[in-house]
């Protein structure tokens, strides 16, 4: 404990002049259009609807970025119920992309986003490569839209979805089709359900993705032993929440070590210390998902606790924490 005296000095110095850490991060360095966040805390797609509900609860502009519910070209009703089942420290969901379709999203919702002072990233999904490209075209230049998150990792669909994200060639084709159809920054959202995520990550990077989101939900299952039937509308569903955190963290670490572009960490983040873990593992930003179901203020709380961590630990720039885990 030879450093305890200097630690104490550092703590006292920090207390004497409370430092406001610089939190700004860049998710698309060198892109045609920038995606700079005022802080690294984002919402996760499908866990904050389109942001309007949260905007009624707190100042949405405090967040780094807001993700839309996944959108498709045409409106979708989504899957039948039950869509949700709780599992130990987590939950399974099978929502199936219930959404109003991209036209209505732009006419009814993006007009609200436009009045916000926070970048909104649209999570989008097509059945085919061509549909991804068409979505990207429609969203390009739409007021209120700051970036695209390409969902090649949804486990709850019969067509497309996670199948794109499990094959490096298919993943790259989707990303390339989107990148060439838009001037917006493009994030590829990866599935955790692969043998080696770095292969997919590099394929997306080479195809022109500006950033990667690691990761979507794991494919899981739960069975009712009385009825002997799955407890969700489809036999398998997406597992999220604290139960997946160590797994997602490992994937972020592996991915960040394998690519040059920014990685966004996502999976089971409940508080500020979880966010710090992901950033230390190599994440430039984090997405808060399931935590918002328990407490809709969770993204703001994660942010406040992240700031507190920085202040208490003398971190003056959040970028200094990215990938700073010491493994030796």
């Amino acid at each position, binding site marked *: 404990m030879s450093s305890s005296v200097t630690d104490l000095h550092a703590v006292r110095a920090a207390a004497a002049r409370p430092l406001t850490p610089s939190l700004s991060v860049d998710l698309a360095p060198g892109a045609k259009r920038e995606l700079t966040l005022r802080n690294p805390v984002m919402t996760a797609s499908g866990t904050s609807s389109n942001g309007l509900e949260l905007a009624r609860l707190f100042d949405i502009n405090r967040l780094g970025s807001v993700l839309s519910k996944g959108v498709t070209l045409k409106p979708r009703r989504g899957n039948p119920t039950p*869509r949700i089942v709780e599992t130990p420290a987590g939950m399974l*969901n099978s*929502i199936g992309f219930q959404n109003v379709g991209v036209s209505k999203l732009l006419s009814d919702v993006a007009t609200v986003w436009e009045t916000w002072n926070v970048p909104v990233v649209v999570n989008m999904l097509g059945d085919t490569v061509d549909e991804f490209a068409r979505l990207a075209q429609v969203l390009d230049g739409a007021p209120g839209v700051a970036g695209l998150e390409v969902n090649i990792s949804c486990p709850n669909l019969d067509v497309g979805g996670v199948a794109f994200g499990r094959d490096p060639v298919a993943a790259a084709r989707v990303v390339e089709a989107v990148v060439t159809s838009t001037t917006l920054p493009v994030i590829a959202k990866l599935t955790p359900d692969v043998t080696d995520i770095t292969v997919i990550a590099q394929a997306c990077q080479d195809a022109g993705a500006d950033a990667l989101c690691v990761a979507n939900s794991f494919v899981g299952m739960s069975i009712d032993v009385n009825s002997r039937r799955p407890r969700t509308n489809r036999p398998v569903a997406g597992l999220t929440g604290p139960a997946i955190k160590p797994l997602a963290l490992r994937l972020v670490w592996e991915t960040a070590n394998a690519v040059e572009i920014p990685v966004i960490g996502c999976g089971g983040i409940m508080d500020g210390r979880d966010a710090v873990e992901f950033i230390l593992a190599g994440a430039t930003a984090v997405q808060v998902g399931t935590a918002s179901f328990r407490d*809709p203020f969770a993204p703001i709380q994660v942010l406040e606790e992240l700031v507190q961590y920085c202040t208490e630990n003398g971190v003056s720039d959040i970028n200094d924490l990215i990938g700073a885990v010491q493994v030796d």
Partner: protein
Amino acid sequence: MRRAAARVIQTEEIYPGTFVTWYDAPALSQHAKPGQFVMVDAGAERSGLDPLLPRAFSYYRFRYASPHDSERQFALLYSLIGRVTEQMASMQPGDRVWMTGPLGRGFEVRRSAANLLLVGGGVGIAPLVALADAESEHASRSRSIVLCFGARGAEGVYPAELLPPQVEYQVATEDGSMGRPGFVTDLFAEHLSWADQSFACGPVPMFRAMSPIVRRDGMSRPVQILMETEMACGTGICYGCAVFTKRGVKLCCKDGPRFELLDVYPNG
């Protein structure tokens, strides 16, 4: 919608297996209406991760602790069905539990409606008592309220003495041990044409049995039902609580939990 740590005032078992807990949290009760609900986050106080998700409970009753109080306390009614309700029942006066509320769209009572018919089964009684309380407060409006309640047997029947005296209470039990032998829907069928407005909360089979009764009646009378679905958030952000209606897919927590019976169960 607010999030607050509600303080437990007291808990009592009002009939076997069914509990009522009173809470103090003005932010959660101030603007709450019968038919609305709170999400109870039983895990948060211990920052536990299991259970992870909050659970929905309808407002059951409101009261002022003293005549001079401007802030209402509220009560929730529940039966012990799992860890969350067991935890709620075991909390001591003074303990705190995080909740989010008031949520959803509650019952809508027309000013002109004189005869109100309330139909419930099981813990579906909770929002109906809140409604009966609120509507019997307006004595000047000279409303008549009939509350029909169904249970398997006498031990599951909500106690009559807990209801406001103005309410006419009709009970049906499947085993005939109390009130009318049969189903609560039989009582519903008898009173439907009397009612200016009807309100129901109970298990899905009850709603399904009510549907043909309303259609047979031929007047397509509106019946407001309070639905219960799986919910992850209760606040409109997860899309887990889908209700498939004649008017499209709705979210139970945000567009409901009040729906029109025939919109959801057009054919039973």
